[in-house]
């Protein structure tokens, strides 16, 4: 009730007062895992994006819940936001489907829900982020082309059963299937843990000494490359890479044969910008209807390879080693999606 009144009040104010007067939105950000720096950067960028709106005369207040929680714990995040009466919730969800009931509740309360980084099945929510399948397909394509469509490849994946992981597997599988001479000899899981990725690579090298390519995701790529270097195979094997500054520096220094699709931590900032426009009542040019759940708005995926890695490295200069190469929709870029 309170919220509806507030919304109503705001609508009245928007009509009565010239646009120069500050609009005010509260947006809740929920993150259910703090195990990696990527997530921290994601929150920070979203907070910075909210600040930027001040210049436009919009007061975007951000409330954050970021902690290691299980699925019920993150559902509680959403319920807490609902209780607080936020205008919008942006979530990096721990599960694709678990939030259906709670999102429908949020929608009943007139709260806009956007998920980012991982898609959700709820039709009451919107996904703003990259297409994880395409993300994997891009780097797989790079790998296949680098190998000239021929060779033995191994894949190191994240957490088995995790939706993003499965989408990525689908992505690279569909690409490699187009190249009959590329053989995926083994797929292992290293749980998105860099050290485990390093160990997995090491074991794979022992078992398949003559592999030509490695498809590996995120931080595990840094680990895999480390094992390749230790085994003296960095020059012979092509492998996908990742986007943290540490790795980019290493890449430039050792001239790896690598390519990396960027999953930018800025996705949440992009989602936030989209959210503010939607809260202002703007309509998307094309309704978000992509993806398996038909509720996704996919953002462009930057790609780093031998050609542009030096530029990327320059951009990252002065950042901490765990800082990920990022990109996000600026307010103006986001506006371009709207009518």
């Amino acid at each position, binding site marked *: 009730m309170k919220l509806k009144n507030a919304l109503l009040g705001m609508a009245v104010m928007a009509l009565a007062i010239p646009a120069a007067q500050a609009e005010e939105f509260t947006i809740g950000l929920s993150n259910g895992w*703090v*195990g*990696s*720096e990527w997530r*921290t950067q994601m929150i920070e960028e979203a907070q910075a994006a909210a600040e930027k709106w001040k210049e436009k005369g919009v007061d975007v207040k951000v409330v954050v819940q*970021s902690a*290691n929680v299980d699925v019920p714990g993150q559902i509680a995040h959403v319920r807490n936001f609902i209780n607080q009466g936020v205008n919008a919730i942006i979530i990096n969800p721990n599960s694709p489907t678990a939030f259906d009931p709670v999102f429908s509740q949020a929608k009943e309360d007139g709260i806009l829900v956007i998920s980012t980084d991982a898609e959700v099945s709820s039709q009451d929510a919107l996904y703003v982020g990259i297409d994880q399948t395409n993300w994997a397909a891009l780097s797989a394509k790079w790998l296949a082309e680098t190998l000239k469509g021929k060779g033995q490849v191994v894949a190191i994946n994240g957490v*088995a*059963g995790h939706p993003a992981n499965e989408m990525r597997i689908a992505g690279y599988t569909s690409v490699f299937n187009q190249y009959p001479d590329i053989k995926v*000899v*083994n*797929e*292992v*899981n290293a*749980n*998105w*843990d*860099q*050290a*485990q990725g*390093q*160990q*997995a690579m*090491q*074991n*794979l090298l*022992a*078992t*398949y*000494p003559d592999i030509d390519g490695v498809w590996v995701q995120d*931080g595990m790529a*840094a*680990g895999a490359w*480390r094992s390749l270097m*230790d*085994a003296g195979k960095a020059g012979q094997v092509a492998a996908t890479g990742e986007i*943290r500054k*540490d*790795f980019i520096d*290493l890449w430039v220094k050792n001239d790896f044969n690598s390519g990396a699709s960027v999953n930018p931590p800025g996705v949440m900032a992009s989602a936030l910008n989209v959210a503010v426009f939607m809260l202002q009542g703007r309509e998307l040019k094309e309704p978000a209807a992509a993806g398996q759940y038909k509720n996704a708005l996919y953002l462009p995926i930057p790609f780093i390879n031998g050609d542009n890695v030096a530029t990327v490295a320059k951009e990252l200069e002065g*950042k*901490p*080693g*765990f800082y990920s190469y990022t990109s996000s929709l600026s307010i103006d870029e986001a506006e371009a999606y709207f009518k």
Partner: protein
Amino acid sequence: MTIMQPTNPQDSRSSIIVYFKNPLLVAFILIVLLLIAGETLSPGFASMEQILRLLIVAALLGIVAAGQNLVILGGREGIDLSVGGVVSLSAVLAGNVMDGNNANIIAAILVCLAAGGLVGLINGVGVTIFGIPPLVMTLGMLGVLQGLLVVIRQGIPSGLAAPALANFVSKPFLLNLPGILWLWIAVGLLMAFLLMRTSLGYKIYAIGSNENAAYMAGVPVKRVRVMLFALSSMFAALAGICILGYAGTSFANVGDSYMLSSIIAVVLGGTPLSGGKGGYTGTMAGAFLLILMQSILTTLSIGESGRQVVFGITLLFLLLFYGRSKALRG
């Protein structure tokens, strides 16, 4: 309540079984069997280089397990679930202090050991002075450490290992063995010396076997136990530094997998969770055994669900050999 009798009908039958009750021997037999199995499944698996690389990984786990081993030996349900958090904390702290510069290695080691020691001290005080069960205390501490990591990472630059550290961990150092293995051997010798040739070792076994009797014999039970927790965290911190060298960079979830695997390494090494008996030599074998098992599973192309099922069953099978409690009926 029994009397010694040098000869009895049982002597002849038990000799082989006695050997099989020696966990160290069982571990070594299993290691050899697994190596053979690995080599059969994928030729090249049991090559010298691969074994060396596995040993490096086992060393990282083994150093964490050294501390875990001490806490478990000290009895009274001693267990340290916070080691994973300490490993992460130490790797991140070390990375920040080192900042990729060899000159900062000593400072980084000191900072990490101090931080680890402090965490262990708090664990120990919680367990001994406040009487919180170790499982609860260290579980709570794990949550605190995870939070601390997020705070520490706010705006602090870098996190790169110093080149010397990275070389020490993975490049041959002496006699073609990487430094980390020498470190592990040193830790092994230190632990053996500590447990078998110092009064502290005697005291650890004493409080693990019968805490009250040890107390009545003047053993400073609380002080020793606090020391065990402090040592445990310091070993975890040391491992954290090494893992930084292994991975080259620090990252927040680096220690997560060490929590339960360090406990399993100790148990596979023949130290029962009830404490008071066992030792570190077994734990070293246990750590290698565990890494070897995981490594063989990685190379099997049976899908993750299959791997987990096989791993779970294998682990259960191995545990049949180790530290099973005595039957209630004597």
